[in-house]
């Protein structure tokens, strides 16, 4: 019989040939079996491209599932915590899904492509869970990760670039809108979504047209300072935007081995995504119970004094230390906010907005380690949240 041998090497995205041409750093890591760049030319400047002009990030390794069938809406509505009946075709929903104990398995975006036809996009893979959720339902779930590749075009000039490409209608896209159009014979899907908390779009196309899309995009963006960026730059932007990431700020509940290491959406500050009015969804009973009883953990956004990044720091409720009340999961100096920022997890009742906490920071300068207890204020808003993110049509620049 004929068989396909498994590929032993890391996969390459369809955009890889262009990325390889741009690559000066030769710094790659693995993301779901793909080669994914830490950066291409200068990581700090890549970050600024995102905030100042436009950064292009390769989203291809994102896991994509197409969900169709008569029960697709009922299916998704039971799967995720938010009310999917409110998400009309042409809209995208950020959503989170839980197990029966109300613990977060993952978050992701759900694209309502056409009536009854959805695409679920997430960092992790979930076919096993999605199929379990389909027991007794008439839905079809197809993993189309390799059939669709994607680019995130994020930053203030992203709109102008797309307009320059001749993508008509893009000016009407409001945040979380999506549209499909013909791109030289291929279907190009554009959504006004992103992971940077700024004006930006995500473009989705079949691998055959990948390089053509890349070339057209970069040609159109030439005068708008378009730049390819790597994960390092994106990671910084996502912390500024206050977004959480799996395996960094939380662990998918289905892979935790120790008890108490998973988190509920309420504990991750995603209570706004939980619709208790819905009659049933995975985790509803547990979350109602948690709401009654009170959560154990709380995710906090911290504005930390000084400029020493608080990586992996313990959090205390007083300057003297004592027993820690939590720990930092993501930390960065924000170049655009000029703030020392972090996401962390603390035990309730600590961590209310406005609380003054302390983080224990160890830092090293010229081989010497120092320790500082820095005051950290719990803030409610994302650290970076420019109005241009919301304006429709966006300003041209």
């Amino acid at each position: 019989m004929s068989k396909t041998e498994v590929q032993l090497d890391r996969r390459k995205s369809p955009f890889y040939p262009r990325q390889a041409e741009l690559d000066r750093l030769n710094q790659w890591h693995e993301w779901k079996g793909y080669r994914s760049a830490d950066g291409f030319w200068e990581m700090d400047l890549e970050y600024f491209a995102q905030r100042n002009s436009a950064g292009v990030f390769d989203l291809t390794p994102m896991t994509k599932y197409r969900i169709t069938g008569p029960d697709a809406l009922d299916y998704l509505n039971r799967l995720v915590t938010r009310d999917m009946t409110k998400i009309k075709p042409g809209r995208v929903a950020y959503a989170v899904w839980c197990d029966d104990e109300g613990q977060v398995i993952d978050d992701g975006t759900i694209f309502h492509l056409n009536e009854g036809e959805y695409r679920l996009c997430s960092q992790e893979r979930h076919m096993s869970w999605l199929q379990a959720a389909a027991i007794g339902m008439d839905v079809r779930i197809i993993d189309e990760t390799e059939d669709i590749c994607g680019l995130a075009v994020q930053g203030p000039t992203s709109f102008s670039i797309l307009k320059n490409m001749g993508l008509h209608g893009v000016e009407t896209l409001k945040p979380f809108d999506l549209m499909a159009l013909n791109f030289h014979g291929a279907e190009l899907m554009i959504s006004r979504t992103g992971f940077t908390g700024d004006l930006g779009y995500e473009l989705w196309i079949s691998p055959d047209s990948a390089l053509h899309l890349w070339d057209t995009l970069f040609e159109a963006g030439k005068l708008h300072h378009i730049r390819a960026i790597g994960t390092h730059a994106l990671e910084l932007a996502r912390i500024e935007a206050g977004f959480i990431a799996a395996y960094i700020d939380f662990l998918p509940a289905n892979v935790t081995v120790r008890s108490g290491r998973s988190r509920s959406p309420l504990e991750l500050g995603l209570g706004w995504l939980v619709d208790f009015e819905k009659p049933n969804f995975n985790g509803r009973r547990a979350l109602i119970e948690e709401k009654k009883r009170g959560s154990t953990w709380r995710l906090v956004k911290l504005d930390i004094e000084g400029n020493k990044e608080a990586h992996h720091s313990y959090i205390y409720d007083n300057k003297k230390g004592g027993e820690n009340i939590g720990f930092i999961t993501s930390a960065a100096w924000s170049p655009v906010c000029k703030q020392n920022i972090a996401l962390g997890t603390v035990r309730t009742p600590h961590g209310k907005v406005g609380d003054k906490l302390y983080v224990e920071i160890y830092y090293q300068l010229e081989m010497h380690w120092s320790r500082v207890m820095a005051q950290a204020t719990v803030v409610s808003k994302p650290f970076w949240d420019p109005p241009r993110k919301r304006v429709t049509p966006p300003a041209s620049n």
Partner: protein
Amino acid sequence: MKTYDAIVIGAGHNGLTNAAYLAKSGLNVVCIEKNDYIGGATVSRNLYKDWFYSNCSYVVSLLRPEIYRDLELARHGLQVTPYGGGTVFMENGDYLGSYPDPEVHWREYARFSRADADAYERYSADTMRQCRFIREFLLRTPPDPASFKPRDLRELAYLGAKFFDMGEQRMYDTIRFWTMSVAEYLDEYFETDVIKCALSGSGIIGTALGIHSPGTAYVLLHHYMGEVDGNMGAWGFARGGTGAVAQALAKSFRSYGGELRTEAGVEQILVKNGKVQGVALSSGEEINAKVVVSNMDVKNTFLRCMDKNDLTEEFYNRVKNFKIRGSSGKVNIALGGMPTFPALPKDSPLLDGDMHFIDSMERMERAYDDWKEGTWSKDPYVDMTIPTVSDPTMAPPGKHFVSCFVQYCPAQIEGRDWTEEERQQFGQTVIDQIGEYSPDFKSLIEHVEIRTPAVIEDEIGITEGNIFHGELTMDQLLFNRPIPGYAQYRGPVGGLYMCGSSTHPGGGIMAAPGCNAAREILFDLRRPDITPVNFGDD
């Protein structure tokens, strides 16, 4: 007549571990071994030209790292190198690989089913959760649930607390895991038959049960709860073969002043007034000691080496009914070169891993049906490794040593002894099965050693050649192992102890029984406990 503080009968890895701890504590210890080599089933022997055969146990994972470190086995020459990967060759010409790289592994499983590829993560997490739970108890003495002693109550409470720490739903999952069959356990994760088949082997290795028999999910743990350098579930080869483990333990034992005597088989354990006095050797010589520790399985210890009058009838019957069943054989082969496996791509990393030639759940179960009828599996489950791929010391350059662990192989054929012809046929069954997938395998064979349970029993002494010194069924685990009321390493007469794999936590090159028994002996002698504690959460 020589007198010692303690005599350890049997220089298997548990006997040596036990002896080493007793010697380390300052006791005058002799470890006696009936064969002219040490190690028992933890052995590598030069049986043909320049080949060294790990002709019983063949891979290392369970060896408790606490003991490895504590007895300074690295300093005494032990070196364990992890190996990765595995292959199931399929009848249709395809194969299922298992790769150490999780992404490649995912892609391989995804060739058969995406859902299965994704489910593997949950399967691993759930299985690891059970491993973490059981690992807590490996270096602890099981409590006696019928006792009201503070020590037992405390230990029971500890066990209960660890259980309740898992959380409600996971406790139910744990109850199910301990009681269900490996086939049913896998059904809850995977849909692809060959994937289930590949994973199910670990549920039956060394046991007289089929993949559909309740209780086999637990047996998985005896293949997952080990580690190599903190990588839970990883397996490795000891450089020089598994015998190197015994050699290192022996060196460690000697370094603490212990005395090792080979070719000193025990005829009888001497008892007077309900207390052990020492042992009588087959040679007629008697050795005296107030403490006698048996590394032999319980049947050998009590039925063969003790006077029935020194035991109560109830105890005697329970030992008699303790289940040690020969269910596996070994075929060890010296090859003149590396065999080829046309199904695999050239230079596939899978050649470094273990290989299996049975590809469906039905074939796995039917292999067991043969055993139930008192014969060896005609289409057996073979776990084949070629340690010489990574260990240059076991065969001349370019040549290879192949270890085939074979499930199932009974101790007797339909209730009578094996004939020589049947033994040869058994070996041929295995070689033929491999030959199906490797056309040049047979022509490369230089020497074959075929070991049925009876052969292993004759040579090593283990009843029915059982790798675990007793079935790992629920009625013989934890406080039931080996016998209810005697799970704390103490025998029925004063000063007599058990330290072999018949005791908690069971077999495999784990060394935990030997270490745990030492703890109890030192406790009884009112000496400080020098046995190591669990490394803790990992």
